[in-house]
């Protein structure tokens, strides 16, 4: 696991081009690493020092929220995003820090699976936040790049309701 300030976390990952056995083994390893970290709902390949465009998200352990189950996203692309919500985020690559981040409330993302088949996913709320957090890693972005202050949070909220 890479930890900031390791500058490798700031690099842009390259698309996956071969959907072979090595990729499928990596996907299994990535999932094992995510599941071994208590409370972790997503992981991106660059966090484990592998700079290809691969993320995994699984928020199904959180009660009472909409989700797509386990999502293995290879070469993910944003199709659409709407709304905005501020929520608290932390990251296995940034120990002992959490902060408020504004993310889209609803997204549509398309990605390939381990066999290279394209699929579209619609995500909202917590799951959308997790997908956006992980895809950011592929572009060398951490939640530290998107922090908003708590005062900002209250104002945004006060305006909306």
């Amino acid at each position, binding site marked *: 696991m890479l930890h900031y300030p390791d500058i490798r976390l700031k690099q842009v990952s390259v698309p996956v081009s071969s959907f072979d056995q090595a990729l499928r083994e990596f996907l299994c390893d990535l999932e094992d690493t995510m599941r071994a*970290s208590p*409370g*972790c*709902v*997503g*992981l*991106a390949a660059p966090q484990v020092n592998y700079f290809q465009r691969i993320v995994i*998200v699984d928020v199904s352990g*959180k009660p009472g929220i909409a989700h797509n189950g386990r999502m293995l996203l290879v070469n993910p692309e944003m199709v659409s995003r709407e709304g905005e919500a501020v*929520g*608290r*985020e*932390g*990251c*296995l690559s940034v*120990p*002992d*820090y*959490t902060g408020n981040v504004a993310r889209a409330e609803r997204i549509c993302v398309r990605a390939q699976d381990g066999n290279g088949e394209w699929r579209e996913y619609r995500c909202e709320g*917590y799951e959308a*936040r*997790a997908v956006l*957090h*992980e895809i950011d890693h592929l572009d060398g972005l951490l939640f530290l790049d998107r922090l908003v202050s*708590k*005062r900002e949070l*209250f104002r945004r909220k006060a305006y909306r309701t």
Partner: protein
Amino acid sequence: MKRWYMLTVVGRDQPGIVAALTDALFRAGANLGEASMVRLGGSFTIMMMVETEQDESGIRALLGPAGLSLGLKLHVDTIEAHLHSHVEPNVRVTVYGADRPGIVAQVTAALASRGFNILDLESDVAGTPEQPIYVMTIDGHSAESATAIEKLLLPLREKGVEVGAEPLETLVG
């Protein structure tokens, strides 16, 4: 031997306070830790962790010139740093209403009665001098749910104060 101190600073707000103090600390070889610096009313306030080989009076002496020229009151306490052990808040309490004495006391008494640990409290007096409003957000750690905390605070609504509690969930990815 290096030790950690909590430096407290209060003075009339003006540009250059942080720069002057942190420059003096940096030149003296001090290291800074976590800090909260904010303008409250017309005052600028600083609570800042400082690590240095100086003792308390040494810190006061090295900040003396900057403090004097900017009209700042300085206070230094020796502390244990306990860095890298953030406690994650799990409930946010928001409070607002017409400003009147007792809001903070009543809200926090209720929270304390349930062992709610306040980690971060921000409050502002807004509105106009004739009709001030009070706005407060509290992030804390609670063994009880946000729903239970909100229920606990509901009687305050009858006194004209808007109160709410919501769960803070931290996504870890």
